[in-house]
């Protein structure tokens, strides 16, 4: 029977939830990697058997990438460090923000987005990574500025039809595109207003992009949650247009595309930019089914009073199934899930440490 696996990275370790009854009930397990902040996990289903990756950081002992080939039963760390900056860069790895599979025909390619903002590539399934020099050497890099979470490269999207086409997003540097597997990079933020800059301008780069997601059917369509706005691209990220505002609350961290339906995406707006909690004490997921022309609130099963929650950029995800399973975790340690495209939600876990990242998949 298929199992749904949800990995919940927290400020104090990695938890997992598993369901074998069609996502009606989940069993909580953990923590693994106790005491470590888990900002990035990856459930990689491209190989002959699923592989899990986790990027964590210990306050004392620094960052580590681990792999599991038994669905989290055990985690291994390579003797030689997996992700490290070359000596000549003078940089030291602070945190791993993203672990993303390469193309479907590149089963051993994995990307890591890190802090300080840089991209690493693995060609051996996550055992070892090499710095993508061309992005590190980009002339804009010295002008990138850290957001509240640090100067991080937090999003890596590989084009499903052409794995040489990469999109990365940096807070606060903006969106960068490559058409040659990382050999060259260009900023691509046309249309994104940096409202936090004097004059609310649209600079070539420097936007505080919080997250980007790709449409399920149209790979050129992208959804973007910016620091103070929500945008869509219909040309693979070359240009961006504002989506219809959600009641004037356009601050938020995550954006999730529906895994199978076209033009469908989800947002979790927060009252921004100072408070950064669910507006009016109500937790609401918003769904569009028309590529951001309109949004519908989803509240069934979500707290609608005295709920002052923060959901971070990688703490909202889908399991890729149909209907979509959706999961988000809060900094107050709750995990909510939906098994019906977001129509209804249930509290799957509470009293966890602050949730930093959530990833899910259905495993055959």
């Amino acid at each position, binding site marked *: 029977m298929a199992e749904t696996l949800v990995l919940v990275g927290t400020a104090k370790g990695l938890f997992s939830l598993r369901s074998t009854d069609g996502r009606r009930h989940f069993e909580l397990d953990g923590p693994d990697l106790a005491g470590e902040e888990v900002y990035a996990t990856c459930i990689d289903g491209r190989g002959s058997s699923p592989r899990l990756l986790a990027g964590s950081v210990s306050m004392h*002992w*620094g960052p580590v990438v681990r792999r599991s080939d038994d669905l989290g039963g055990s985690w291994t760390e390579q003797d030689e460090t997996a992700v490290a900056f070359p000596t000549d860069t003078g940089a030291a790895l602070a945190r791993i923000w993203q672990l993303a599979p390469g193309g479907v025909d590149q089963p051993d390619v994995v990307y890591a987005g890190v802090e300080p903002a840089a991209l690493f590539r693995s060609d051996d399934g996550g055992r070892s990574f090499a710095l993508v020099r061309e992005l590190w050497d980009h002339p804009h890099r010295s002008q990138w500025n850290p957001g509240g979470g640090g100067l991080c490269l937090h999003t890596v999207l590989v084009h499903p039809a052409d794995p040489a086409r990469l999109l990365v997003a940096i807070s606060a540097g903006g969106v960068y595109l490559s058409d040659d597997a990382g050999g060259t990079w260009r900023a691509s933020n046309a249309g994104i207003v940096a409202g936090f800059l004097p004059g609310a301008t649209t600079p070539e780069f420097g936007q505080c992009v919080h997250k980007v997601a790709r449409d399920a059917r149209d790979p050129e369509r992208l959804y973007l949650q910016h620091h103070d706005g929500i945008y869509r691209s219909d040309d693979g990220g070359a240009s961006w247009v504002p989506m219809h505002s959600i009641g004037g609350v356009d601050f938020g961290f995550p954006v999730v595309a529906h895994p199978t339906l076209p033009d469908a995406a989800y947002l979790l707006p927060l009252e921004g930019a100072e408070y950064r909690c669910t507006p009016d004490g109500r937790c609401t997921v918003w769904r569009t089914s028309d590529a951001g022309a309109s949004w519908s609130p989803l509240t069934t099963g979500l707290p609608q009073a005295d709920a002052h929650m923060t959901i971070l950029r990688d703490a909202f995800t889908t399991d890729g199934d149909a209907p979509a399973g959706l999961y988000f975790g809060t900094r107050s340690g709750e995990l909510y899930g939906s098994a019906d495209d977001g129509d209804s939600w249930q509290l799957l876990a509470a009293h966890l440490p602050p949730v930093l990242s959530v990833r899910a998949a259905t495993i055959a």
Partner: protein
Amino acid sequence: MRVPAALREVGGGQSTLAVDLREAGTVADLLDAIGATHPALERRIRDEQGALRIHVNLFVGEENIRGLAGAGTVLRAGDEVSIVPAISGG
């Protein structure tokens, strides 16, 4: 080198590691030697640029090397170097 319990998994399961250094070898030399045999232990003590992690202290005997010559602190035969996590966290 004395290895705290939290690091024994990456330190070969041992509570102490004996390391032979050249005469007038330093803490940096010690960490180089540890890195050759137990790289995952070394990188928990210092980052890839060689900087001691901010919440990790190394003591030679009862002296914190931050109050000595740092990684350049010279070691003598028989010195015991302890890895001590700072009392930080939350």
